């Protein structure tokens, strides 16, 4: 090398590109104000859903609508809370409990039931028993996989995604094999279960679900002061005095129950949690669970109940809301992958 210092070519001297998040955050409103606005919108959606175009037979229509609204609120709550907490303990913004092969497992359980005991057998089983079986299997599966994956100290996100894909593919493979062996008439019965449906939910199941979700919420309430610290990552959380293994285990149990209840109640909803959680992060300038959690839940209620109103009243559609949500959620997932939000 010569002794003189030659100026570097401009391409080298330009400052390294700062990794800036595109400013999604509408900085105008404080998180508390957002909660207020969203609560009003959510309440308006619910009121609209219950009252618009009621028709003559109140005694018949209204209880059915109340049932549906309660189902949607419960699902919005469970999905919002479980997704945000799951992302907090895993330290990522792209994995959700349901992306981990959950919907595929649900499909497999449905297919397995129809295959082994027949559609008449499924009907004979009764909705409560079926719900119990589905819930038990899904909680057991998620508990096992989350525990195995997330209690070690250095699990990579890529491994987790890969495991989710492998499980999902396996479940789907087994399902499609069983479906091929089904009678066409049995298959038609099964097809109904493949998309989430908020319309035909049994009142008894709804009551059981509310109790289960309520119990899970008590756990959440007890741990609420530790969530923000947990989001700093395992090592920092431990250094700040969090009993990490205990809290993470508790949160995983809560997530398993919430996701299990939702899926058993209405069917697979893969990307819904991803949308509401990430919108909630964007609306909160600073990350605080006491803001993010309610915002995610309220956004969920608005999307489900408000979406249902729009679909039913404006487009005269019925029950296709989950498909629209999955489409939008899938797009968001792709955008996030491409933008490199995954670390």
């Amino acid at each position, binding site marked *: 090398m010569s002794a003189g210092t030659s100026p570097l070519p401009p391409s080298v001297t330009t400052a390294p590109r700062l990794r800036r998040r595109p400013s999604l955050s509408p900085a105008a409103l404080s998180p508390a104000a957002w909660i207020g606005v969203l609560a009003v919108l959510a309440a308006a959606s619910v009121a609209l859903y219950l009252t618009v175009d009621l028709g003559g037979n109140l005694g018949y229509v209204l209880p059915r609508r109340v049932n549906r609204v309660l189902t949607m609120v419960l699902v919005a709550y469970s999905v919002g809370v479980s997704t945000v907490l799951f992302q907090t303990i895993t330290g990522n913004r792209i994995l959700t409990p349901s992306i981990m092969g959950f919907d595929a497992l649900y499909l497999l359980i449905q297919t397995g039931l129809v295959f082994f005991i027949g559609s008449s057998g499924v009907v004979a089983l009764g909705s409560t028993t079926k719900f119990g079986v589905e819930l038990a299997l899904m909680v057991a599966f998620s508990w096992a996989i989350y525990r195995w994956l997330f209690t070690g100290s250095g699990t990579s996100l890529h491994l987790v995604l890969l495991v989710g894909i492998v499980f999902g593919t396996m479940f789907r493979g087994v399902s499609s094999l069983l479906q091929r062996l089904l009678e066409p008439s049995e298959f038609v019965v099964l097809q109904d279960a493949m998309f989430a449906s908020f319309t035909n939910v049994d009142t008894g199941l709804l009551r059981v679900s509310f109790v289960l979700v309520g119990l899970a919420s008590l756990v959440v309430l007890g741990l609420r002061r530790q969530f923000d610290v947990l989001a700093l990552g395992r090592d920092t959380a431990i250094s700040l005095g969090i*009993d990490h293994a205990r809290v993470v285990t508790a949160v995983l149990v809560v997530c398993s129950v919430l996701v299990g209840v939702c899926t058993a109640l209405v069917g697979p909803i893969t990307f819904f949690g991803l949308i509401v959680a990430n919108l909630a992060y964007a609306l909160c300038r600073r990350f605080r669970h006491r803001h993010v959690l309610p915002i995610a839940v309220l956004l969920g209620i608005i999307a489900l109940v408000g979406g249902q109103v729009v679909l039913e009243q404006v487009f005269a559609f019925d029950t296709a809301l989950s498909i629209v949500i999955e489409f939008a959620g899938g797009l968001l997932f792709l955008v996030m992958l491409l933008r490199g939000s995954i670390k």
Partner: protein
Amino acid sequence: MIELTGLTKRYGSRTVVDRVSGTIEAGGIISIIGANGAGKSTLLSMAARLLPMDEGTVFVDELDVLSTPSDQLARKLSILRQENTLSVRLSVRDLVAFGRHPHNRGRHTAEDREHVDRALRYLQLDELADRYVDELSGGQRQRAFIAMVIAQDTDYVLLDEPLNNLDMKHAVEMMQLLRRMAHDFGKTVVLVIHDINFASCYSDRIMAMKDGALVHHGTPEQIMRPEVLRDVYGIDIRVEQIDGHRIGIYFA
């Protein structure tokens, strides 16, 4: 006083920390030096309950780190690892305020705010206090995390390569700050450090590790000798006395 007894960590058949025993007296700066892979960070992680040990015990002022409730230990001992990334969006002040969590469980008092302000001032982060952590440079982020540890205000502070990412000015300021913490406020600062000359100039004691074992433990005068450094690093390092400090010369 931190007491290590027979501390051992194995990954499969590989032993990364091998029956390390020793006592770290309270007060002062203690540097842990050694080549890459000597087990320094692993030792520090085990001492701070971030990593379970395969054998041995660690006691911090008579408290067993494995059985003492985590929040009680967090008021006595803090640790900062090398890589600190956040998956959530926080301002510098928010991050530093988390250092008070072991004391206030999320309910901030006026005293907590004072601690936070002081920590920000110590690390000259006043002007960056309202910036987001993910928008800072590596060195600024490193200082923000160290401010959090300082706000935690524990008797024992364990730092894994605190000079990472810092330029010369900030590195020197960091070491001066740590010395002030140790000597003026009676803290015990244990750090893993690669620059033996910083270790020599600022440490009260130096622990040298090699292949998972603690091979030397003494004052900078005892450790900063060519024969000792040769044993630790396997290279010849000339040691000169400059302004009362022993400086190792290893660049050529």
